[in-house]
């Protein structure tokens, strides 16, 4: 199928992108285009203006910044998964990103695009939650920073205003003592997650000192499994304790029912996959 016509502007800076967005009531930002272009082709969106940020240097690349790594929003999934910085300091992100769609899509699609699109079945917002990431956003009034926990508002909805651009994502490093795992459940390899779980666990002396667990596709937005996290904190790093804690995984969620799964099945998947993700993050299996 064929997109409807639109005006097109290519910008070289985030500020120019913001300026361009302000010229239209109905503009869309084009990064890698792997979500946007299929939507345009199906004419599910017919924007008046496309602002192409794929050439903005300040939005591209991965750098170390003290106790964090900073990833430009326009960095491709492929560059994320193959980055030594990411593999060393955010292996959870490397692992989850490697499961996004397929190799061709990962060559074009971007980290920031996936975050800003905020699809509840996407793989990366959960990782941002586990990492307590911070989003750097450019807008008419300059830049602002928003914690991941405050960024995702609703289904396909974030705190980004119509005239704002996500510039970069700052991921505090998960240092020594942390283990992570991303557990994803799909019907076929290239499809979206039915449910997925991102887990990070810090062990101390055979018990779990700290745990962070984020759920994919268990609500209109990604969310942390708070009940599981608190049940794990201080628990023994044992299969039994993890399984017991994981029984709380569906608490506070509101999963949808669709072709692939009814809500009660999603809840069960959340419990099972949380157990597996945490166990692997804790180095148990």
């Amino acid at each position, binding site marked *: 199928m*064929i997109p409807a016509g639109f005006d*097109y502007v290519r910008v070289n800076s985030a500020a120019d992108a913001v300026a361009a967005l302000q010229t239209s009531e109905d503009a869309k930002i084009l990064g890698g285009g792997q979500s946007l*272009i*299929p939507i345009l*082709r199906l004419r599910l969106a017919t924007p008046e203006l496309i602002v*192409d940020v794929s050439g903005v240097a300040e939005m591209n690349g991965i750098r170390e910044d003290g106790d964090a790594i900073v990833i430009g929003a326009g960095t491709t999934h492929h560059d994320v998964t193959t980055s030594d910085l990411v593999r060393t300091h955010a292996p959870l992100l490397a692992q989850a990103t490697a499961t996004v769609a397929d190799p061709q899509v990962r060559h074009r699609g971007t980290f920031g695009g996936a975050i800003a699109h905020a699809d509840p079945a996407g793989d990366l917002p959960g990782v941002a939650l586990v990492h307590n990431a911070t989003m750097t956003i450019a807008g008419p009034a300059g830049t602002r920073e928003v914690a991941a926990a405050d960024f995702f508002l609703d289904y396909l909805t974030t705190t980004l205003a119509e005239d704002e651009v996500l510039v970069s994502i700052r991921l505090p490093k998960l240092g020594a003592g942390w283990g992570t795992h991303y557990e994803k459940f799909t019907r076929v390899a290239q499809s979206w997650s039915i449910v997925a779980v991102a887990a990070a666990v810090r062990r101390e002396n055979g018990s779990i000192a700290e745990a962070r667990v984020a759920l994919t596709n268990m609500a209109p937005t990604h969310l942390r499994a708070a009940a599981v996290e608190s049940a794990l904190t201080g628990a023994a790093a044992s299969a039994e304790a993890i399984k017991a804690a994981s029984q709380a995984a569906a608490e506070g969620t509101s999963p949808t029912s669709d072709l692939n799964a009814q809500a009660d099945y999603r809840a069960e998947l959340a419990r099972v996959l949380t157990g597996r993700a945490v166990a692997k993050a804790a180095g148990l299996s």
Partner: protein
Amino acid sequence: MVSINVTVDGRSESHDVEPRLLLVHYLRDVVGKVGTPIGCDTSNCGACTVSFNGQSIKSCSMLAVQADGGDVLTIEGLAGTVETDLHPMQEAFRECHGLQCGYCTPGMIMAACDLLKENPNPSEAEIREGIEGNLCRCTGYHNIVRAVQTAAASMSGTGVSS
């Protein structure tokens, strides 16, 4: 209209295009590279896979204007068009009967070449995951996997790379 300059299969192309023109339609309808087909609307099937700046991409999910200044390699530029001048991946697909109707084949071959560039000696599982973005309805993938294995062996043996 936007002016773009794109290198396609080693040849420099310059055209004025509508911003909404998909790269695959640019290749097929403007440049005349009809060897790259279209199989879906949603970037699932991978039939339109080409190499852009050295990486496999789905040309139905990229705008022609985004290719400005870039380098596109299609199945038609992968090797010569005579039988004695095939890329090892093309040769392997023929040897292993890795195609039947052939519609998915250009994309499958371009994806497989990209896979071997990143991982010259993939396991069967790595091959299957590496071409998961390309759907085939004829072969059941069995012989495609054999073809990629055969090409990997032949390319690592001869030092040929894509």
